[in-house]
């Protein structure tokens, strides 16, 4: 029992450090706060269930991204749920706004656009933003490096077009 508690505490401590990135994955894959919370919880559950398979020789974040994205890719949103309203994006922002406000606006446009991509494209964009090389992305997705390059370029072009459609310069 004490061992389980120690293991759980160690796991929760790790999650405390990495919860932000899991939340970001949830926001990429789900559009409503309720679905994002459901996905967040499901990822934590799947990580906990697979925790024994984590080999401390490898990097925790790499292992975590795999489990988190594998979960997000096949995640089913709740059926027959009332669709809650998605917050509208601000239409205009003054040039003199602070950099943090500007970044928030950019992120709001990014999340709204990325949610419209295919699930695999979302994973590609995620790994790209986490500075993974084509080789690393290919290994994590289980596809060839050439295929990764082609698919990532397509996903980036699609994302750019979607952000432009929202009236934001990209």
């Amino acid at each position, binding site marked *: 029992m004490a061992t389980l508690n120690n293991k759980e505490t160690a796991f929760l401590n790790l999650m405390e450090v990495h919860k*932000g990135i899991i939340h970001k994955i949830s926001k990429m894959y789900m559009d409503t706060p309720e679905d994002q919370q459901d996905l967040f*919880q499901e990822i934590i559950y799947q990580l906990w269930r697979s925790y024994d398979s984590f080999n401390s020789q490898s990097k925790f974040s790499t292992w975590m991204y*795999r489990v988190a994205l594998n979960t997000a890719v*096949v*995640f089913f949103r709740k059926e027959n749920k009332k669709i809650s309203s998605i917050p509208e994006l601000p239409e205009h922002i003054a040039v003199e706004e602070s950099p943090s406000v500007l970044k928030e606006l*950019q992120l709001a446009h990014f999340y709204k656009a990325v949610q419209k991509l295919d699930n695999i494209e979302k*994973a590609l964009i995620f790994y790209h933003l986490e500075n993974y090389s084509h080789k690393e992305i290919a*290994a994590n997705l289980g596809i060839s490096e050439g295929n990764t390059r082609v698919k990532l370029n397509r996903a*980036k072009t699609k994302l750019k077009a979607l952000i432009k459609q929202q009236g934001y310069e990209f």
Partner: protein
Amino acid sequence: MNFDELQSAWNSDEGKGAVLPETLQRLKSAHMPVTKLRKNMRKEFIMLVIIFSLMGFFPLLSIQGVPTIPFYAMYTALIMLTVFHLTKFYRFYQRLHANTLSSKDNLYEVYYDIKLNIEMYKSFNYSIIPLIMLYLVMIVLDLDHFTTTPVTPHKKMVIIISFVITFIVAVIVVIVLVEWWVSYAYGKYLRQVGKLLDELREA
């Protein structure tokens, strides 16, 4: 905005609003395709167990034309089949998924797991058909025993043909219903994972 700016915005996002559960013991999987599929199948099996338990009392109603011995022979075989399939489902239910594999391997594993569960479900439903046939054969063989008036060869032939036609119609209805129900209730999970595998194919 360009991708460098997006990268900078992404790095600055700390993922505010993430709340960890207080305890991990109460966490349950609820939104994964295999979990949903098994949850639905579990509900159906519970219903079946209730129906089969009630079925055991059927001959006690003393309805004419329900011979007791063939009925209980079929009933025992039905219970054995159900126990066999329930055990198989339970074993699969306990199996852990290696979701630490690459996305493609993980998707293949999920895909074939769903397919396997669906095929097991179908095989369970179809395995009932020979039992019904056996039950009907037992009734036909023992026809004289269940009727008060002697059965003429002509009448016996008419009864046998009626049984064969009823059996063929019942088999067709069972197959159509099972295929429709599986496609309607469980096929969507298979289609969703199949679509994801398509997305991973070489460009």
